[in-house]
């Protein structure tokens, strides 16, 4: 553990955004926004520097307070964390720029919402802290930081619908974190450590471990809005302000997924069973079908996009069954695990870029029209070609058509599904694609139709449209470094050595 290179960067990645958030509190509307934006850009820059540092030197660690685990807390920036931090920085920087113009444009009508900036910086710090943390209890604190700031952002508009949705979101989030913490209590009780690495070595199968796996998985599934705990997500994401919706769907739900992924592979490796994997996969498949179908049935743009998140998060759950093979089954090829991993990472990135672009586009449309009813989107392609292009590209990525990031994710997912011999997941993936095409083109087809009635289109700053388009493009561009990225991720401990424990766990099949 201690032979890894130490670096101050992990600590700065958490400290800097909080410092800037604190600083911004001393300013009023304009100043808050300015300090906030500068803070966001600095954090993004720092994240990219840290990413580059990891590619150069490998996994970086920072031993907080100078106390080695198990007594102290370790920050660990391995390739997986670096990828998530880099993604957060890219999406976050774009959304920050969008937010700057978005709130400026609505300043005169009381839509400046300066508290967005400190809350978003806190959220960012929480996310970075989460990706870096190697300590189960510290992870709890970071998900609380994320949870409170995310709900506060969700209710920023102060509209009644947002308040109701926010309260539901908050109650679900508290319940989820409490369930997670219950699991942490049992893990600590049975091993006397909270450090992920040490836990992975010390943990033995038994009722306490199984129960911890159960409550931790359930708690994190609630916070990731996994089926059947997705009820809070569509109202919360659809009623928030555009930049906030983008943040919530692109980044916030990914945080808890990240913990789930880490814990399943690095902590629970030995105690996983085939049945546990199948159950969580089933939830994922159900989310894909149900969420897509719900998205297809909505009449408001933002609700379509929000329900689509439920479906897209379902794909993330579908990689868990692939981590555990059925008893007696040998994989068709050695790289099935790497396929499953890449599928997960790509789905996270593609969804982050595409969904944020979609929500930002929806924000642009609301700004122009004053509402987001789908049947009013006639003539949009003539009025706002850039936005239609952004929605089209983002939609293509959500459907998973080539050569988008979503395609890469689905390709890898299907490959993992076939290689692990679990072909029964394939229909859900394909049905999800078809339904996604359904809801995406339900929006786009009207964009090409001529205007039916007179509608007033208020002007929208071009910068906003540009940001949305760039994010959509990014969901395609992430495909190009795939080869490099897979190698980078494979250099991670989690990618390589986790494999054997998982195979053993699956092979035992003592459920």
């Amino acid at each position, binding site marked *: 553990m201690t032979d890894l290179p130490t670096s101050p960067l992990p600590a700065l990645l958490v400290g800097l955004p909080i410092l800037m958030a604190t600083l911004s509190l001393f300013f009023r509307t304009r100043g808050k926004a300015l300090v906030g934006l500068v803070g966001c850009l600095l954090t993004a820059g720092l994240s990219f520097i840290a990413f580059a540092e990891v590619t150069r030197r490998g996994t970086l660690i920072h031993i907080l307070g100078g106390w080695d685990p198990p007594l102290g807390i370790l920050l660990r920036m391995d390739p997986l964390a670096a990828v998530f931090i880099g993604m957060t920085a890219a999406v976050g920087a774009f959304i920050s720029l969008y937010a700057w113009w978005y709130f400026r444009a609505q300043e005169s009508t009381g839509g400046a919402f300066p508290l967005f900036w400190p809350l978003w910086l806190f959220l960012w710090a929480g996310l970075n802290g989460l990706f870096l943390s190697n300590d189960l209890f510290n992870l709890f604190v970071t998900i609380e930081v994320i949870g409170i700031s995310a709900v506060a952002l969700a209710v920023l508009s102060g509209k009644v619908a947002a308040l109701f949705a926010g309260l539901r979101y908050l109650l679900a989030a508290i319940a989820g974190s409490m369930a997670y913490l219950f699991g942490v209590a049992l893990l600590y009780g049975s091993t006397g450590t909270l450090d992920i690495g040490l836990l992975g070595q010390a943990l033995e199968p038994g009722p306490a471990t199984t129960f911890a796996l159960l409550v931790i998985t359930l708690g994190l599934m609630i916070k990731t809005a996994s089926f059947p705990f997705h009820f809070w997500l569509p109202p919360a994401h659809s009623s928030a302000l555009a930049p906030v919706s983008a943040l919530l769907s692109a980044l916030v739900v990914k945080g808890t997924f990240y913990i789930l992924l880490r814990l399943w592979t690095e902590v629970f490796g030995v105690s996983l069973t085939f049945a546990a994997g199948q159950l969580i996969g089933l939830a994922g498949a159900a989310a894909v079908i149900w969420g897509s179908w719900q998205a297809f049935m909505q009449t408001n743009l933002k609700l379509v996009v929000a329900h689509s998140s439920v479906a897209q998060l379902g794909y993330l759950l579908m990689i868990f069954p692939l981590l555990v093979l059925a008893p007696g089954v040998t994989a*068709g090829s050695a790289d099935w695990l790497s396929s499953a991993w890449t599928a997960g990472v790509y789905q996270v990135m593609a969804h982050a870029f595409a969904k944020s672009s979609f929500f930002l586009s929806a924000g642009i449309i609301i700004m122009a029209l004053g509402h987001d009813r789908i049947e009013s989107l006639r003539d949009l392609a003539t009025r706002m070609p850039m936005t239609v292009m952004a929605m089209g590209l983002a939609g293509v990525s959500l459907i998973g058509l080539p050569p988008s990031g979503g395609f*890469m994710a689905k390709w890898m997912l299907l490959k993992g599904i076939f290689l692990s011999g679990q072909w029964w997941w394939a229909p859900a993936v*394909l049905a999800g694609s078809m339904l996604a095409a359904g809801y995406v083109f339900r929006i786009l*087809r009207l964009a*090409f139709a001529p205007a039916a009635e007179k509608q007033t289109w208020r002007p929208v700053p071009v910068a906003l449209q540009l940001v949305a388009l760039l994010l959509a493009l990014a969901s395609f561009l992430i495909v190009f470094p*795939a080869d490099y990225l*897979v190698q980078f991720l494979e250099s991670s401990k989690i990618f390589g050595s986790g494999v054997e424990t998982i195979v053993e766990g699956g092979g035992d099949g003592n459920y």
Partner: protein
Amino acid sequence: METTSILPLLILGSSFIPGILILTLREDQSALRSFLNLFGAVAKVSLVAWVFAGTMRGEEYAFLFRLAPELSFSLRVDQLGLFFASLSSVLWLVTTLYAIGYLEGGKNRRRFFAFFSFCVTAATGIALSGNVITFFIFYEFLTLSTYPLVVHSGTDHAVNAGRTYLWYTIGGGTVLFLGVVGLHVLAGPIYFGQTEMIASLVSEHPTQLTILFFLMLAGLGVKAAIFPLHGWLPISMVAPAPVSALLHAVAVVKAGAFGIIRLVYDVYGIDAAGQMNLLTPLAILAAFTILYGSVQALFQDDFKKRLAFSTVSQLSYIGLGAAIVGVLSTTGAIVHLVHQGIMKITMFFAAGNVAETYGYKKISELNGIGRRMPLTMGAFTIAVFGMIGLPPIAGFISKWYLGLGAVEAGSHWVVLVLLGSSALNAAYFLPILYRAWFCEPDHEAVPRRRTGRLETQVLLLIPVVITGLLSLAAGVFAAMAGSPLSIAREIAERLYLL
């Protein structure tokens, strides 16, 4: 293996970059837009010709980019691909001219021409793909780039047609995706022409390979409009005439047919496909589609709809030829790619001219149109005779080779299908010619467009004349070196040598 070259990329870029640039133009910059378009089209034809010449000299052009482990973006020029690329690029040039004339003064032309360019990019991408995954990428790109063209007019009718089009093509794409991933998992990355991999697996995994073959065939069959997957094609008739030309002759259906040829010959290999008995179902399906499409065409009064069902029928000649083992029938299938393209595009241009000039969309309105538009209808007549299979027009050559191949392979029933289809072709096409040339016009009609001294606008007239003459030339000069037939023959021989 091959030398890396950016020429294949340039061929794609010659239509893709103008498309992007057009998107950034203003709607009213029509001169610049037309320039970009034509420049791209001419550049593409020249580049293809250049590569063609190089390939003849024995040079190889390939471009490879590794996306992920075992997932590479590969462009590689081979003769079959180049054959299709030549067809697309030449017909694109013609269609661009036609479209500029056709859409003059229309709305949303920026969008139209941009996606028009993307569409051809996708078609040439399909032609030049070096492996299955690259083929799939462009196959889906084609779906997406044609959608805005199908719904271009924006009427409810068009939007609904667009929806049908999407359900069929995205569904087909999804099934194809499943097949492609399955194949990838089973056999690793498949480069076209390397059939040893599949051949070595035949004895081990015959069931999986059969399932995957039919999955991919179903995916390709949607675009190739094989019964019962043809439903989108007649409905997409609402699109403007240049788009119909693109769908029926240049890009979409051809992508499907071309894909089937690739699948049979360059992925599975004719030996493996024969060994697993995959071709008989394909042949039967194709034969049925030929007859079914023709019968359906008989009952259509809408001009373009009749042409559309004719496409359904004619296109399956390619599938049929691919499914019969033998150099001659394969030659027939490959050459029909080009022959059907130039004949059908002539017909759609003609139908578009009639509709644009006089507003006639139904066959029952066409009485005496030949006298008013002699050049247009002359070209149309050549195409009709070709479709029926009269010598010395292009269609005759295809049918002749298909028939010879069938006899050679011992599938005599195919000859009956071909004869029956020719009779049906005559039955639904000749009434049009009869009305056009021999019936008196019902009433006086005034052209809706300013036509000058010609029968219609010059930009609408030139393309139809060119493609009409090409249809004739392809048949007349079939025996000469460099004709589509001779090239197709060469390709077929190589496929069987491998």
